[in-house]
């Protein structure tokens, strides 16, 4: 698997800037919560670049609504992730051995 190339990183960064701009009105108030939650997702998934992340962090320090949405998304995502990870199907006992037998190992 290859690392994200410069072109792809640039595309993501431009998308972030464009979406961020659309999320706020001229007065700087959050007007597009769904768009903003997509930005939150990118930040929480560790996929936003340093510049985008820094713009984002600056905003959530000063905008109560953005901060509330971010914290809520973060908590919900963490809760869902933890519960899904704890709820994994048990590996059938014979499967690993069956696989090894099937390839003669």
């Amino acid at each position, binding site marked *: 698997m290859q690392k994200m190339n410069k072109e792809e990183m640039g595309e993501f960064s431009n998308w972030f800037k464009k979406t961020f701009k659309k999320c706020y009105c001229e007065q700087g108030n959050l007007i597009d919560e769904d768009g903003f939650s997509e930005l939150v997702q990118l930040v929480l998934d560790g996929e936003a670049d340093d510049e985008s992340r820094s713009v984002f962090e600056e905003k959530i320090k000063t905008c109560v609504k953005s901060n509330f949405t971010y914290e809520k998304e973060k*908590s919900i995502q963490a809760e869902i992730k933890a519960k899904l990870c704890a709820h994994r199907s048990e590996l059938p006992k014979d499967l690993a051995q069956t696989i090894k037998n099937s390839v003669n190992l």
Partner: protein
Amino acid sequence: MSEEQQQEEQQVRKQNYSESEKTDIFDNEFMVHVDSMYNFAYRLTFDEDDAKDLVQDTYLKAFRFINSFERGTNAKAWLFRILKNSFINEFRKKSKQPAKVDYNEVEQYYNSDDAGASITTDLRVETVQDMIGDEISGALNGIPVDFRTVIILSDLEGFTYEEMSKILDIPIGTVRSRLHRARNMLKEKLVSYAKEMGYAKNE
């Protein structure tokens, strides 16, 4: 993509491992992921026997094409890609639970500009906290397979967008938007479920 095409693509950087190297790679780089592979297969098929068959088939292919695997690269992502292709190309056709939904149509709808308003949910943190893993897992199983897959790959298996893009053969921008739609769909399911079960009094 057909098996022949996959083979051709993988032959670009073909290795020439000895028998002992093959055994070593298979045991130490492939088999360590069997638990994750089974979980992924089970969440795709919802059937223990089908999941076992799918995982076994994936490992057989991995062994057959082991010279196409470059040692030290991401074995887990390589195996997940084979499993996903097997599921799409062969397994879905003979699955005991055939697809009832046109997923392209679903995705087109959820990717359209006017879909945003209808998928915004007001899910509360407390509601999710009240739920047990079985309920959240059930909600995940209720969303279309292409959307379920991105949540599994990202949130359960920890793949990056770049890795998911390679596993699923889709552009990275599509990974981002599909994951967002998928998470909204999951939230919608959880809100509906919470209402039914009386968890969400004011939602």
